[in-house]
């Protein structure tokens, strides 16, 4: 067991993520306290507490409180008058102390606690969902990165915007890490549209699609070989590690991961990934393979984790905050921690051998009978519960021996259960053997014929507008049920896995099973198909076949049937692909779509095909023509900008294009955008008016309160009652105004989000430098409120 190096109880709950540790009171060197002795000053803990306040707590405060001289109990409050949505801190270049950064739903405040002065106060209409302070390569000074709804801003010390770009969803977490190992830090952003994006300056480097909303990211400082690693956590309880674009491992649990940090808890010189969970579990995992180094369960959900020197001891500790207001510290350099290391060292070797370099889940760490149990026990496996049952059993499998010691009893019980299951299995096998002895060799034996196999095909079903995944077992075998996993992309509404059963689980199996799939997004991925196959319908034993079925990116597009009336509302993107032949373009698009959707041959240097989406019947028309002096000129037409941008990005990836400029002609989108911008302007001016009205009314309320109080002291009851009556009515009015304003805020947010999304998609019609150029040109146009400039930035055409 690891004993906490200190424990403090604050009498305020700590909300998830709303805490940070910083040196707000000047540098960490010696301070002279009353005794005249110099000692290091510990960092101060800042916590967003109730009543729109921030609580500052430092260990020296508690010491003073213990001395009996401090009447305030060591806590200082900062009034902010707005709901705190993110909290962070950082030290600007040349500063001697940290600046507290407080984000709310519409603003960012940088506050110097020591001087009691605002560094700056900036309006952030998109809201502040996440904050990160740090240095991005190419910008001379550290910036405050603010993640909001579809937008990403960077502010410098004076509050001027130095960085802006768009992301697909709400940016929920950000880190600065060198993910491509070029020696420069990139900005890695996790958002709630399941994506992890890496930005170099304002240019998107790569995107990783995850299966759920990305909640946490944390950079890992490792030795040279692993410098591009970072850990992530999803809303569905998955945590894992990426090395650049490739996933190293991941595990999933039932609970929510609330906080993640990298800290060397066992003092071996390598950072572990510490995660805090909603059930109070504190867990440390090795970053190489995800093996558990330490696990403990606290009484209350863990809400924040960070590292720092809280007590002023000079060594960095792990600080763990819980919802109940408890703050604990763990010291990785303690003797306990060293014990942890020697204890786990030997066992971890074995474990590392079996899973290293493999996706722990993908490696099929669950044996067949566990899936069977899951299937039998819970026939409604199509929902998340079943999925999690598997995952949780997986978690148990994942535990290394060290953890088993800590959760000894539970583990033992499970092993016993497994043992009984195995004996039962053995017994029934023996039964079968007896039957076999009695005769009828092949029929009664539960096993499959030697040549048995399963064949998976994917086809488009135009009538039902879906993809049909057809599992065909070989002669004499029956397909009982199928589990289809999408582990990378989050394709299904149901979660990670979809199940199909023959005859709704009645047990009547046939040799063929068809599952309808409706992938939510266009992603090139592999589906992992597990088919439960038996020799006979009523057999007790099912055999599992694991197969992989590749899914092409645009598999939901089928050749268009009738395109005559759809020409009206089409927008298009036209661009020139240099140094490529038409055949290269053709085969590249062929790889993106399902087979037989792209024409095999092209006639007279021209290629043209039309596709319709199975989701909403929207049209995609692609025309490509080879130029006489090399290169291909292409035109992509569709009803929505989204499809065009996705196609261009996919094509650029297939052809490995580093740079692509394009012209965009999307009258419908531009028209919509114009409407949106007008709406935003209208909402803004309305908001201003509402704000003024509310301020006026609250001033009136203040004066009424004073008047009422005056009347009370003078015992002027008539005046008193009439003033209080006024007060009530003004108060009601104020509440009404507030409701109006919050509606206004919600509408404004939605409109801004849409604007940002359009800009992002427009930028994704380009690749490389032009893409970043579009984003920054759009921002400039938005700032100057020039709609023609914005349209020009989006279309790249001289005049529309």
């Amino acid at each position, binding site marked *: 067991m690891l004993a906490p190096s200190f424990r403090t109880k604050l009498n305020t709950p700590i909300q998830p993520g709303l805490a940070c540790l910083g040196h707000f*009171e000047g540098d960490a060197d010696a301070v002279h306290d009353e005794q005249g002795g110099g000692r290091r000053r510990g960092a101060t803990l800042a916590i967003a507490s109730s009543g729109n*306040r921030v609580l500052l707590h430092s260990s020296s405060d508690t010491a003073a409180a213990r001395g009996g001289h401090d009447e*305030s109990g060591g806590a*200082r*409050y*900062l*009034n*902010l*008058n707005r709901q705190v949505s993110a909290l962070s801190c950082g030290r600007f270049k040349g500063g001697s102390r940290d600046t507290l950064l407080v984000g709310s739903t519409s*603003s960012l405040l940088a*506050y*110097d*606690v*020591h*001087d*009691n*002065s*605002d560094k700056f*106060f900036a*309006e952030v209409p998109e809201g502040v969902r996440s904050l990160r302070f740090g240095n991005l390569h190419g910008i001379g000074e550290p910036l405050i990165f603010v993640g909001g709804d579809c937008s990403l801003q960077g502010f410098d010390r004076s509050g001027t915007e130095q960085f802006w770009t768009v992301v697909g969803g709400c940016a929920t977490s950000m880190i600065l890490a060198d993910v491509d190992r070029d020696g420069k830090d990139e900005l890695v952003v996790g958002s709630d549209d399941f994506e992890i994006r890496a930005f170099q300056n304002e240019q998107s480097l790569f995107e990783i699609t995850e299966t759920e909303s990305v909640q946490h990211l944390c950079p890992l400082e490792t030795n040279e070989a692993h410098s591009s690693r970072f850990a992530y956590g999803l809303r569905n309880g998955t945590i894992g590690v990426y090395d650049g674009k490739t996933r190293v491992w991941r595990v999933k649990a039932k609970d929510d991961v609330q906080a993640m940090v990298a800290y060397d808890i066992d003092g071996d010189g390598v950072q572990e990934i510490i995660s805090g969970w909603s059930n109070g579990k504190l867990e440390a995992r090795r970053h190489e393979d995800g093996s558990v180094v330490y696990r403990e369960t606290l009484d209350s959900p863990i809400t924040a984790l960070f590292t720092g020197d809280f007590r002023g001891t000079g060594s960095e500790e792990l600080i763990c905050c819980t919802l109940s207001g408890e703050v604990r510290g763990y010291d990785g350099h303690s003797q306990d921690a060293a014990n942890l290391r020697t204890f786990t060292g030997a066992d971890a070797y074995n474990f590392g051998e079996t899973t290293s370099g493999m996706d722990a889940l993908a490696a099929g760490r669950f044996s067949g009978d566990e899936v069977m149990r899951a299937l039998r026990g819970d026939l409604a496996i199509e929902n998340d519960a079943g999925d999690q049952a598997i995952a949780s059993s997986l978690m148990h499998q994942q535990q290394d021996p060290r953890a088993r010691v800590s959760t000894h009893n539970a583990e033992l019980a499970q092993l016993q259960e497994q043992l009984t299951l195995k004996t039962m299995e053995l017994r029934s096998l023996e039964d079968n053997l007896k039957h076999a002895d009695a005769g009828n060799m092949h029929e009664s034996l539960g096993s499959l014929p030697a040549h048995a196999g399963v064949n998976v095909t994917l086809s488009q079903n135009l009538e039902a507008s879906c993809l049909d995944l057809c599992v065909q077992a070989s002669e004499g075998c029956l397909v009982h049920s199928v589990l289809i996993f999408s582990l990378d992309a989050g394709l299904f509404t149901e979660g990670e896995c979809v199940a199909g059963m023959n005859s709704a689980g009645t047990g009547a199996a046939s040799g063929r099973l068809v599952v309808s799939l409706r992938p939510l997004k266009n992603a090139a991925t592999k589906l992992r198909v597990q088919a439960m196959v038996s020799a006979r319908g009523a057999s007790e034993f099912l055999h599992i076949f694991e197969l992989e079925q590749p899914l092409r990116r645009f598999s939901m597009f089928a050749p268009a049937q009738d395109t005559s009336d759809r020409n009206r509302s089409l927008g298009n993107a036209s661009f020139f692909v240099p140094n490529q032949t038409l055949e290269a373009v053709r085969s590249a698009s062929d790889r993106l779509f399902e087979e037989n959707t792209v024409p095999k041959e092209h006639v007279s240097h021209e290629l043209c095909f039309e596709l319709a989406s199975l989701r909403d019947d929207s049209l995609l028309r692609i025309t490509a023509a080879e130029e006489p002096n090399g290169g291909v000129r292409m035109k992509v037409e569709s009803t929505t900008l989204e499809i065009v941008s996705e196609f261009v990005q996919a094509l650029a990836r297939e052809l490995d294009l580093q740079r692509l400029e394009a012209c965009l002609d999307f009258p419908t989108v531009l028209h919509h955008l114009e409407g949106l911008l007008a709406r935003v302007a209208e909402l803004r*001016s309305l908001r*201003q*008016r509402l*704000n*003024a*009205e509310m*301020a*006026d009314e*609250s*001033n009136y309320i*203040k*004066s*009424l*309160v*004073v*008047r009422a*109080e*005056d009347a009370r*002291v*003078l015992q002027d009851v008539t005046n008193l009652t009439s003033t209080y009556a006024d007060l009530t009515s003004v108060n009601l009015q104020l509440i009404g105004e507030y409701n109006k304003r919050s509606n206004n805020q919600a509408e404004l947010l939605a409109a801004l989000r849409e604007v940002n999304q359009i800009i992002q998609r427009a930028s994704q019609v380009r690749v490389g430098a032009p893409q970043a150029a579009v984003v920054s040109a759009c921002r400039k146009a938005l700032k100057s409120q020039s709609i023609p400039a914005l349209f020009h930035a989006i279309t790249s055409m001289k005049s529309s």
Partner: protein
Amino acid sequence: MASPAFLAMSRFRRRRYEECVDLCSEILAENPYDKAIWLLKTQALTAMTFIDDSDLEELGIADAVMDDNATASMPRPGTSLNGDNASGKGSSLDRVMRPMSNAGRPNSGFVRPSTQNGMRPGTGETPGSRAALESAMRKTGSSRPGTSRPVTALGRHVRLGTASMRAESDGPFIDVSRMDLQKYAHRPTLARALCEFLLYHDHNARKALELAAEATSACNFEDWFWKSRLGKCYYLLGLYRDAEQQFKSSLRTQQSVDTFLDLGKVYLRLDQPQNALDAYAQALEAFPGSTAVLTAKARTYEMMRDGDQSLRAFKDVLRHDPSHVEAIASLGAHYFYSDQPEIALRFYRRLLEITQSTESASGSARSYASTELWNNVALCCFHSGQYDMTMRCFENALASADDSNMADVWFNVGHVGVSLGDLGFAYQCFKVAVSIDPQHVEAYNNLGVLEVRKGNQEDAAADFAQARSAGSFAYEPCFNGALLAYKRGDFPTSLRLAEASRVLFSDHPETLELVEMLRAKLV
């Protein structure tokens, strides 16, 4: 016969605003669409009620007590305007030497709206609580709430706003609620006049804000004037963050002293004096030697209780403007309290000279603060040994005194009496002082001391108690009460009072000694 329009303009220039307004009304009655005259009348009406709000303003009770704009609830000493009594950079000696105003601040040399009535909640009072409100109301009036002067909730603006309504019998000249502000926004000249009218005459910040917002977008957000006006409207509405943004933006376009001062005011409201000082420093870079900015800087330091810096800034002011009354008075007060009455006397004599000259120039009956000034001169004379002058000066002071300051003068006369050893005379004076102002803390305290000397311990105790209830900021009555209780053998009371005194003035050596002694006896 001059043209009526010309005559109206001439009267406007001669500052005969009421006549100008009357004339304009006549012309407008004939031709209601005469824009020039409309403009003139608007400006005349504005000028009549205009006050220069760039430097000072009064905090209303509501603003002061229900103020939740300050970020830090327990700021580090020396970084805030409303810290507790013991904070600040001044040496502990200052507290012994320099008396407190009833706001619990060191007396300033110059009366300003915020120096006298300390309505900001002190230590131990939660802002917005009923106790804070009551104590604020007690501090505002000299005695009971609601008697001495109307309790204003929101400072000067609302009060004047209501006063300016009275003149117009046949409805208001400009009815903003029926105006199409957007139309005016595109006519810069009219819009400016209208905006000033709304701000200074109607005190309708909400409408002014609407107009300014329209106007600033009409000129593509490039006119510094509109941005600073927007800031002012936000400031009046209490939306300080927005005000800050607007002022800063305005300063980026065009630097102006007024805007800097306004920005400083915003920071003072947010209780961030450091930022205000930064703004003033910037202003001084752009406008070196601007006395307005220098004065604001000096005042800010004074409010932060950084006496040395404040003094330096006031000296700077004098270097640029040798007849700056506030600077002279502040320096005089400083030298007086730092035991250099002769030098202080020179400053006050200078003030007297200025007063005389302005009096003769303007011919006005009442001059600057003559009571206080004579009083100060008298004290300086006394301390520098010019006894013959002392009583003459006090007589002068009393001749022009009214209820608000007469008690102070009598208190000082009594103080002189004590110094001369004429205790009977002093006793009389203090009695007069408390008869004029029943809340006069120092007079009660001194009366108590005199009663002790006379041997009337019961009376003395009552006097100290009265002094304590009249003002919670002074440590003297607490300490004296403690000492008296100690002498009478009432140790628990003594300890309680001594502790109270220590809270108010933690470095007072005698208090600390007494507490030690009592602790040793009791515990």
